[in-house]
């Protein structure tokens, strides 16, 4: 296979990882919201934790982005 084509295909495949990270972030905020609707008075205190979890889940998607960027731009 042409190495340049393989590079672009690899970057496209790495983008799948970002989609999976989106599933994780969605699960975190979905569960946070369902918990917050059951007990709204406790929701404010857990707001920061929801964001820490989302940021950590997003971090793994960011590594997929990093792989795509490295494949595309690093010679």
């Amino acid at each position, binding site marked *: 296979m042409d190495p340049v084509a393989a590079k672009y295909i690899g970057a496209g495949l790495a983008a799948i990882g970002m989609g999976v990270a989106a599933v994780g972030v969605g699960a975190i905020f979905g569960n946070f919201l369902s918990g917050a609707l059951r007990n709204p008075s406790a929701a404010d205190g857990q707001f920061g934790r929801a964001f820490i979890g989302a*940021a950590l889940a997003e*971090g793994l998607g960011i590594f997929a982005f990093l792989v795509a960027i490295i494949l595309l731009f690093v010679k």
Partner: protein
Amino acid sequence: MSAEAAPAIDPIHQFNIVRLGEPFHIGGVDASFTNASLFMVIVLGLISVLMIIGTSSKAVVPGRIQSLAEMSYEFVANTVRSAAGDAGMRFFPLVFSLFMFVFFSNMLGLVPYTFTVTSQIIVTFALAALVILTVLVYGFIKHGTHFLHLFVPSGVPAALMPFIVLIEVISFVSRPISLSVRLFANMLAGHITLKVFGGFITMMIGAGAIGIVAAALPMAAIVALTAFELLVAFLQAYVFTILTCVYLNDAIHPGH
């Protein structure tokens, strides 16, 4: 996309660094004043003006600028206290500076024709390296070798311990990378998306009368995206701040 349309839509062009004024070198390192430096100076100027005017009157009933300054103080102070405890408040100046710098850079970048400082990986990596080095230096000064208990959680079976330690070390080492790339990638992706939709408008208008009518669609998308980017600009500044507090918490209370 055809080849001749490519120069019209160049979403990466906005991130080009342009030298302003004379080239300037320190020890072989190019330290010229660029548009990135200019916008960093503007961001610092805006923050200084806000805080100096906000704290000058000290009225009991705050005015607009004063309540803005007080709100940002309260917001960051609450974040630090909830994530790192009262002992974390000694790092408040660092965390507050980081939050204000990231937040103002993100917000200023949304103004058309400006330059987004935080869309440069080297800027965000410098900020993240500052945070991680602070964690390491403070952790080793305060706790000595006890700081290494961070990598050895208690209550783990002996057979699993090597793997757990390996995982903890890898997750610690990847922190500066994920902290910097998160901010950089969010800013980069948002601004590229805005530029791509802007490119749709110019292409459609070039296509004739029907295109001008249809161009209202990407225009509406840009308005919605700009509102979304405002949210992202604040959210990424908040995430950067709260993760800084979480990492500082590891330096203050290791082995938890």
